[in-house]
């Protein structure tokens, strides 16, 4: 395994020996105010650190070549990371990708070899390709013939269509537009309007910068380029390109992880939509990765906060999500996972839990997980560390840092969970990440339903 330099370590303020120094802060260690004081004091002594807002006695410290002074090590104890597999019971390399024709693989790139796991079009899938310049179509055809295996070429039919005007792209079925960089820039508003009209949790219009496509031909990454494009197109056409299978050890180690394939994932994105409002968008996705709907709502902005602190508005939002869930109920999700990039506030946890509880959580085996994830600092590849965990009303609240094998830095996973297994949010992060059919790149850190919601909000911005 490739070794990378560990640049940050996690420490817990344990002793009071730091306070023996005259200039040291004398405050209650587990408060944010104290953490700020300690931080200032550490920085004054040349130690680059930050504290974890959810657990203010935990500090993330940058390790310099000189190491840390002795006095520091007397007052802080390290929370050591462990291997991801050791912590979770599996890591991303243990997941198996299952295709049709009994195909299976350890990597999603075999989407180029096998037919999709499940597809509404049983015999042949036709995808219209609108090209602005003929050479874009030629390039796509070359890449497709070079990298896509015969069984899949027989299944997916690319239907070329010359593009007369951008307005030709209007329509319902999945279609791919090969446009020049110049057109994409100049006609952005019209394109954004068409993208948003084609949206149903996912846009059925796939755009590709034709100039970049030409650049991809002959390059080292052309196989990966085609795999990403094909997987995204199959997904937008309603197929599940591959089924992600949990490893056998899940049966005995962390049984709660078995809820993941039958969970319902709600990815939330937020974007400012004017001076006083922000738009909240929730994309609903199954544990197999297919999008089953979306809900949007405008929220009042209070100060700089981007959290759902207006209880009534949040309740309305949850009610709309629940109405959508009704149509999905026959599949009985064992777990509802609400994901976004920004961490959840304790008030949001209380409101969401209460609202979902009325409907879902009274059933004994149902659980609710609120989870946020975003890029943080490097802790070493294939490592995970539990920064902290505490018990809150009706569940667990905690923070993990996880750096998968191809990540440049760790991802911070902050969660609230009604179940018992604190490793579930971490397992959910790894599992959910693998369901992103629009990007197969191993270094990706974003999670699919959140990414789909944010992509839509990004296009809305172009319309204003």
């Amino acid at each position, binding site marked *: 395994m490739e070794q990378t330099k560990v640049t940050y370590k996690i420490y817990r303020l344990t002793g009071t020996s730091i306070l023996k120094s005259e200039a040291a802060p004398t405050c209650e260690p587990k408060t944010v105010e104290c953490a700020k004081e300690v931080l200032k004091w550490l920085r004054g002594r040349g130690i680059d650190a930050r504290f974890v807002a959810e657990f203010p006695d935990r500090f993330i410290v940058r390790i310099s070549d000189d190491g840390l002074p002795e006095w520091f090590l007397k007052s802080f104890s390290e929370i050591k990371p462990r291997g991801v597999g050791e912590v979770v019971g599996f890591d991303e390399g243990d997941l*198996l990708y*299952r*295709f*049709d*024709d*009994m*195909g*299976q693989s350890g990597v999603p790139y075999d989407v180029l070899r096998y037919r999709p*796991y*499940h597809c509404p079009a*049983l015999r042949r899938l036709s995808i219209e390709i609108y090209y602005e310049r003929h050479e874009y179509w030629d390039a796509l055809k070359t890449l497709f013939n070079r990298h896509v295996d015969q069984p899949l070429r027989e299944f997916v039919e690319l239907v070329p269509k010359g593009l007369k005007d951008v307005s030709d792209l209007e329509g319902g079925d999945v279609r791919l537009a090969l446009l020049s960089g110049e057109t994409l820039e100049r006609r952005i508003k019209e394109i954004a309007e068409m993208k948003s009209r084609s949206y149903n949790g996912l846009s059925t219009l796939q755009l590709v910068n034709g100039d970049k496509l030409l650049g991809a031909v002959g390059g080292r990454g052309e196989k990966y380029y085609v795999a990403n494009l094909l997987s995204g197109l199959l997904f937008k056409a309603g197929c599940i390109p591959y*089924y992600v*299978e*949990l490893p*056998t*050890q*899940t*049966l*005995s180690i962390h*049984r*709660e992880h*078995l*809820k*993941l*394939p*039958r969970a319902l994932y709600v990815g939330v994105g937020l974007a400012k939509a004017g001076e006083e409002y922000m738009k909240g968008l929730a994309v609903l996705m199954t*544990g197999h990765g297919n999008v089953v709907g979306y809900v949007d709502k405008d929220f009042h902005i209070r100060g700089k906060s981007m959290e759902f602190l207006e209880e009534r508005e949040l309740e309305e939002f949850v009610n709309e999500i629940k109405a959508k869930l009704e149509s999905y109920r026959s599949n009985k999700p*064992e777990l509802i996972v609400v994901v976004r990039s920004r961490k959840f506030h304790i008030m949001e946890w209380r409101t969401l839990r209460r609202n979902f509880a009325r409907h879902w959580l009274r059933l004994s085996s149902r659980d609710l997980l609120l989870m946020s994830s975003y890029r943080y600092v490097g802790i070493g590849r294939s490592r995970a560390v539990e920064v902290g965990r505490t018990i809150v009303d009706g569940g667990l609240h905690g923070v993990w840092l996880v750096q998968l094998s191809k990540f440049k830095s760790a991802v911070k996973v902050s969660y609230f969970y009604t179940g018992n297994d604190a490793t579930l949010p971490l397992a959910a992060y790894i599992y959910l990440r693998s369901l992103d059919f629009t990007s197969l790149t191993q270094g990706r850190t974003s999670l699919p339903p959140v990414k789909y919601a944010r992509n839509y909000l990004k296009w809305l911005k172009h319309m204003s």
Partner: protein
Amino acid sequence: MGLWWTRQFRRTVMRGFSHLLDRGLLESCFRELEARLRREEREPCRLALLGWMDFVARAHGGELYRQFRELLPDALGLRRPDGTLLISCNNKLMCNEPKFCLMGYLLCRKRWMEKELRLLAPGTPYARVARVLLGEGDISAECGGRPGSCAIRC
């Protein structure tokens, strides 16, 4: 009760093809399936082969069935080094994952597992395997089909 059940089972599974209950034929069919299983790496195909081995071993009964039950946990990769099983027949979460549900059904034969298997999305690889295990389908051509020595219809 045991003998009655075995007779009923044979009658049901074999649907009156009593002439095929030749124990020698059944054994050669079983051995061929076993040989195929040793070469097969694709999980759904392995499960389909084991499904047929299960039918044949039950129809044969006696020592062959005992041997099959003995090899099953290892063939499924469900035996821990200490000999205990990774699977618990009462773990209902198991059927959230189609592969585990199929494995569980082979080992435990629970009615609720059968119901879960019938709910698998039609047309998916594991739904096709589920039909084999439930006695409603054959080993698919992708998995090499049924061996010639297993001319038993179900």
